[in-house]
């Protein structure tokens, strides 16, 4: 028998791959184990209560998922209206229960596809829905009443236009807009600190947001006209505690303004939905949802005067973290998304938009979307997870962590108040600096090996055929030809629409804006006249004395120049 020769290239380490971190992603230091002493100050009725009971820590419905699963939703927005329409139909057949709309980047910026800055991002991220006719095609054959439509766009002009498109479609078909369901992110803070949306300066964005809430409460009572967003601030860099404080701060600021300036009560507005992030830190994410529900219930009751259960019980809609997904070894993203979905369900959320495993590479392709829905079906029917409401309630660790996140978020909210409130923190740049500081900290932790991301700064390894296949199948950006077709289509629309109708509708938008009337009804009428995104944004800006083009590159069209003079 020959002697065994050890390969010198192999170094075996029993401890390799061990933990490098003893704190959560947000930096909360964690002990090895938790015991009854860590939660002895919790009073069940006061701090937790049964699901469906104030302060809703354990969920907002007594029976939770037994009666009503979370809404399974995700953004569907491909390059053309026809393709998007077909995709919605396929996904509904596969179990999608909420329709989440989006638009390409130029449209969300408030410019039309024939604007010089549109070309390089045109049809990227979704459809170029610059006018009502694109919505007519995109939603052809799909029900409009009593379906949850979620508007996920970045800017206030998008919130305004796309809500108006939905209302206009219903009214044109003789449907009752009282049956419009769903939600609109409509968050001027996120539009500014995350996207730096150039469409509207803050004063117009704030006014548009309040007009949408006021109009929505009065005319589309099943619609949630406002859904403050923590997803994108966190994706931009905020940590979990900052996200909770930010989203609660935004809700308090906007509702404070609505109550003060428009004479509405929180009870009139009804249910509030927060759009939140599900990051990779499993328990931190679960605890976050529990803490946010409890904090909202108390803020709604004590600060904003809510008296109804509906106004105090917070709906949470999720988008799982796109940032956590990696281009390296994309197969691993399946594990990431699955864990994030699980944390949402254990945290009792009400709707889930789960990211797709190819999302770091391109827009999601069909098969991974179905995989996405199937993951949720497996968690429901095979893993049996949703059987019990708040299954982690009472866990020493989870309850302690819930308190800890709450404590940190209240501390930040105090600081915001100290600095003059949310609007002041927006104007001073303090909110943005919060994002940048955390972003830099994460980067430093990654480069010093204090935060490991598999495939990126640890466990790089080789990519195999499955990962390569994922790279090849992800949805690609549109060709030059499609971009040219889009420009041709808007030019055709401008020529063929009823010019008199467009003029008078846009004039009314201009005047309503100038006179301080609610602009939503005039914008709906402009939508019906096939006015475009760029035109509506332009006249609203001009009514405030700003230039027509948010990017200052094109001059005002002659017919608009005329109608704003006369």
């Amino acid at each position, binding site marked *: 028998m020959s002697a065994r020769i050890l390969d010198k290239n192999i170094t075996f380490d029993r401890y390799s791959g061990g933990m490098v971190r003893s704190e959560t992603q947000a930096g909360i230091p964690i002990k090895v184990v938790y015991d009854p002493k860590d939660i002895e100050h919790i009073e069940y009725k006061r701090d937790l209560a049964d699901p469906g009971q104030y302060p809703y820590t354990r969920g907002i419905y007594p029976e939770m998922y037994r009666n009503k699963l979370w809404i399974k939703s995700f953004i569907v927005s491909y390059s053309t209206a026809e393709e998007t329409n077909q995709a919605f139909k396929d996904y509904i057949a596969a179990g999608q229960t909420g329709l989440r709309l989006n638009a390409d*980047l*130029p449209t*969300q*910026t408030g*410019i039309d596809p024939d604007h*010089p*800055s*549109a*070309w*390089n*991002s045109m049809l*990227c*991220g979704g459809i170029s829905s610059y006018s009502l006719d694109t919505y007519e095609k995109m939603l052809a054959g799909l029900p409009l009443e009593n379906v949850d439509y979620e508007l996920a766009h*970045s800017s206030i002009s998008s919130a305004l236009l796309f809500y108006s498109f939905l209302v206009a479609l219903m009214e044109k078909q003789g449907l009752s807009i009282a049956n419009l369901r769903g939600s609109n992110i409509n968050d001027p803070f996120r539009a500014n600190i*995350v*996207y*730096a949306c*150039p469409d509207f300066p803050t004063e117009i964005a704030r006014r548009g947001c309040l007009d949408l809430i006021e109009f929505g409460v009065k005319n589309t009572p099943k619609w949630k006209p406002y859904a403050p967003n923590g997803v994108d601030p966190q994706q*931009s*860099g905020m940590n979990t505690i900052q996200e909770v404080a930010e989203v609660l701060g935004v809700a308090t600021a906007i509702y404070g303004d609505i109550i003060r300036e428009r004479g509405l009560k929180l009870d009139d507005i009804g249910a509030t939905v927060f759009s939140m992030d599900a990051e990779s830190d499993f328990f931190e994410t679960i605890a976050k949802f529990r803490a946010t529900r409890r904090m909202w219930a108390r803020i709604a009751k004590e600060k904003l005067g809510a008296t109804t259960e509906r106004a105090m019980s917070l709906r949470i809609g999720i988008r799982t973290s796109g940032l956590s997904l*990696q*281009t*390296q070894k994309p197969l691993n993203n399946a594990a990431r998304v699955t864990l994030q979905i699980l944390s949402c369900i254990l945290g009792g959320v009400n709707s889930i938009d789960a990211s797709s495993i190819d999302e*770091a*590479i*391109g827009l999601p392709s069909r098969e991974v979307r179905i995989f996405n829905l199937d993951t949720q079906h497996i968690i429901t029917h095979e893993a049996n997870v949703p059987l019990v409401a708040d299954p982690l309630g009472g866990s020493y660790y989870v309850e302690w962590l819930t308190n800890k996140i709450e404590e940190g978020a209240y501390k930040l909210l105090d600081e915001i108040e100290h600095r003059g409130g949310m609007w002041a923190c927006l104007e001073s740049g303090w909110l943005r600096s919060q994002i*940048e500081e955390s*972003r*830099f900290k994460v*980067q430093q932790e990654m*480069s010093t090996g204090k935060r490991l*991301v598999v495939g*990126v*700064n640890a466990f790089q390894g080789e990519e195999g055929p499955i990962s390569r296949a994922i*790279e090849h199948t992800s949805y*690609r*950006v549109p060709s*030059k030809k499609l971009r040219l077709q889009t420009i041709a289509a808007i030019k055709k629309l401008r020529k063929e629409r009823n010019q008199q109708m467009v003029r008078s509708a846009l004039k009314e938008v201009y005047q309503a804006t100038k006179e301080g009337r609610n602009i939503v009804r005039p914008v709906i009428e402009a939508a019906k006249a096939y006015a475009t995104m760029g035109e509506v944004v332009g006249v609203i800006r001009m009514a405030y004395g700003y230039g027509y083009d948010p*990017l200052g*590159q094109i001059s005002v069209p002659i017919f608009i120049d005329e109608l704003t003079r006369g």
Partner: protein
Amino acid sequence: MIVQRNKIIRVVIGKIGCDIHERGATLLALTLRDAGMEVIYTGRYQTPEALAKVAIDEGVDVIALSDHTGSMRYIAAGIIEALKKYQMNDIRVIAGGLIPKKDIPILEKMGVTGNFGPGTPFHVIIEHIRTRVEKG
């Protein structure tokens, strides 16, 4: 053009079009600054023409393009065209962000190098910039 050795490298980082993902661009700006380069970040919503003008006016050695929409080949084509128009094609162009793998040869052919994906260690990018500037 004579390339001075050890001169301070000037870089403009630009985002063209309406892509909002600026984590990479801002972190790169800080990192290049810390590596001793002079860095200008244009912010978002730029046109190729405007970025080329900034690059020329500021006398930069390198234009670094960042984009996460998958449209880098269109964006880069616009920049190269603008540089040619001003006969300033000695400014080097590098790119990073979400770049489809099949577009990389197309970009290289245009003279756009680097084409770094997310998660690329910053020292790799710094080294690439130095090498390209030294090569002239």
